[in-house]
């Protein structure tokens, strides 16, 4: 596991030159081409000076996004930590979770565009159960028999599963109708909830407690100061609180429970774990189930926060989360949160000051740069505590 890093003194002149020159070249290229993508430092600085509140506002939005990204990234990182496999089906499991959340909330909404908060909270249960089960099944029937094969085999199988789940997601998008349990009407009526087209974005019902009026989110800061210019919504608070709860619960779980300790043991040395009497297959499956359940929780948070989903939602959100996991040091839980905060802030700042069309490109650039310059991530896979 330990990699022997060459010490600076071992570097030849050329290597040293390259080490200094490459970052300069990258910064130069980013500034040069970044301009096309809206990276205009002069304008951005002026905008910030003109209205400094905006940047704080974007930090809040960024942290809320980071909360969702963290939860998904933890699913990637836990699985990687324990079997060194990048579960490419994870983003589709998350996407399925958004559909389960949407269906649950819509069934309770019965055609209304607004639901009470408890409905959103209730949606966590089916979404987490479904995603946990789905990810567990993917482990059992896709990955398990490939565990001893070359790593690329599992990766390709994961990609195939991802495509399959995406297409099933597309099919779920066709499930336009759910029964309407209207007691006053005679017979069962049907409600159209998922739109007419399978691929089109679907809208979540809004959470009543989060809105002052149609489309007007309650600003919690206005409760303190009527003229508050900054805005913190209940949805912001909900996603950040949920993420904190998830992070702390998971940390507590892996440190203090019997299964959690077994997970750490398998992550650190599967052969020794088996010798301790740990059922390694069961623990690996459990890790996927927990990772999946987290994706389910993230799916509810995503739906409530963004109010929309589609069968393609997994790819962007998956990219963000995967990048966060890699950035933090894949296999490292704290790293995932750290990476998620970076990606969340990068996205919200880019959306506001650069151009939302280019946000994904910036995230990709980050991924590529991390892969090139620090493949072990910020905290490295050896630095902190793995799963």
């Amino acid at each position, binding site marked *: 596991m330990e990699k022997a890093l060459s010490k600076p003194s071992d570097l030849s002149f050329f290597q040293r030159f390259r080490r200094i020159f490459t970052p300069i070249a990258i910064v130069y290229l980013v500034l040069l081409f970044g301009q096309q993508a809206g990276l205009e430092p002069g304008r951005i600085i002026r905008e910030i000076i003109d209205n400094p509140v905006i940047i704080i506002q974007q930090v809040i939005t960024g942290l809320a996004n980071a909360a969702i990204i963290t939860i998904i990234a933890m699913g990637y990182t836990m699985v990687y930590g324990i079997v060194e496999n990048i579960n490419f089906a994870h983003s589709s499991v998350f996407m399925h979770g958004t559909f389960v959340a949407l269906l649950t909330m819509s069934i309770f909404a019965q055609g209304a565009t607004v639901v009470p908060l408890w409905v959103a909270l209730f949606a966590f249960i089916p979404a987490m159960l479904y995603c946990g089960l789905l990810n567990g099944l993917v482990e059992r029937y896709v990955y398990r028999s490939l565990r001893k094969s070359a790593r690329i085999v599992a990766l390709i199988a994961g990609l195939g599963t991802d495509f399959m789940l995406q297409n099933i997601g597309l099919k779920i998008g066709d499930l336009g109708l759910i029964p309407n349990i209207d007691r006053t009407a005679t017979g069962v009526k049907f409600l159209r909830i998922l739109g007419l087209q399978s691929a089109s974005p679907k809208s979540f019902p809004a959470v009543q407690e989060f809105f002052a009026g149609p489309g007007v989110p309650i600003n919690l800061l206005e409760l303190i100061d009527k003229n508050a210019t900054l805005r913190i919504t209940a949805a912001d608070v909900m996603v950040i609180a949920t993420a904190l709860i998830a992070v702390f619960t998971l940390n507590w779980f892996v440190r203090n429970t019997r299964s959690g*300790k077994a997970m750490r043991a398998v992550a650190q040395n599967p052969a020794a774990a088996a010798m301790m009497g740990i059922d390694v297959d069961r623990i690996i499956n459990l890790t996927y189930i927990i990772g999946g359940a987290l994706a389910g929780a993230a799916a509810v948070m995503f739906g409530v926060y963004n109010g929309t989903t589609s069968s393609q939602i997994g790819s962007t959100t998956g990219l963000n989360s995967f990048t966060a996991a890699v950035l933090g040091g894949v296999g490292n839980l704290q790293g995932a949160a750290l990476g998620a905060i970076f990606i969340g802030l990068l996205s919200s700042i880019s959306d506001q000051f650069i151009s939302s069309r280019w946000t994904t490109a910036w995230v990709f650039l980050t991924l590529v740069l991390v892969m090139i310059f620090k493949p072990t991530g910020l905290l490295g896979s050896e630095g902190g505590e793995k799963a």
Partner: protein
Amino acid sequence: MSILELNNVHTFYGNIHALKGITINVNEGEIVTLIGSNGAGKTTTLRTIQGLLKPREGSIKLKGEEISKIPAHEVVKRGVSQSPEGRLTFPRMTVKENLEMGAFQRSDKEGIAADMEKVFGLFPRLKERISQRAGTMSGGEQQMLAMGRALMANPKVLLLDEPSMGLAPILVDLIFDIIRELHRQKTTILLVEQNARLALGVADRGYVLETGEIVLKGDAKDLLTSPEVKAAYLGERGH
């Protein structure tokens, strides 16, 4: 009374026939050693006993019960634990957590606590390092930890795979003193070693393994003086 019996055990790695029908028995309270050169199949034997590898043929009995077909995590519960080759401690867990992992299959809190005290009695060094992460410890300390961890399972048979490997002579002596102490406490041990002289020095009986077959067996002191063993395993180290 025989506590562990291997009868005509054949183990394969794919097509590689690693164990070619070995028969070994270990009596209660005995130290039995399995010696042989690198690649003979010693580690394979221990992994097969623990259920980590499934024999294609033959039987393994613990106290008369067949254990060759049950999953590895059940074998520990039945009373077989091991200190593996290369120690395989959990590097990012503390000494205490490593020891607790050794008792993973147990639920008797008092028994576990008592055994931990016993382990600390055998290895005071581990007590000093109780909250240190295993990965930061020296090879000798990790060997002690691996042995302590195996003892935490309160095994009926303790398997030790090359406990002296890579250790300085003074630490090797210390480890073998512990093995003698365990013997006095009536722990049943199957000891795998490349260092035949040391192993036969502490053992009651021994088996010599060569390319997956038992070629010689007998009382340890007879093996120590046997010409074949002298030539093949004690030769260049002889006085």
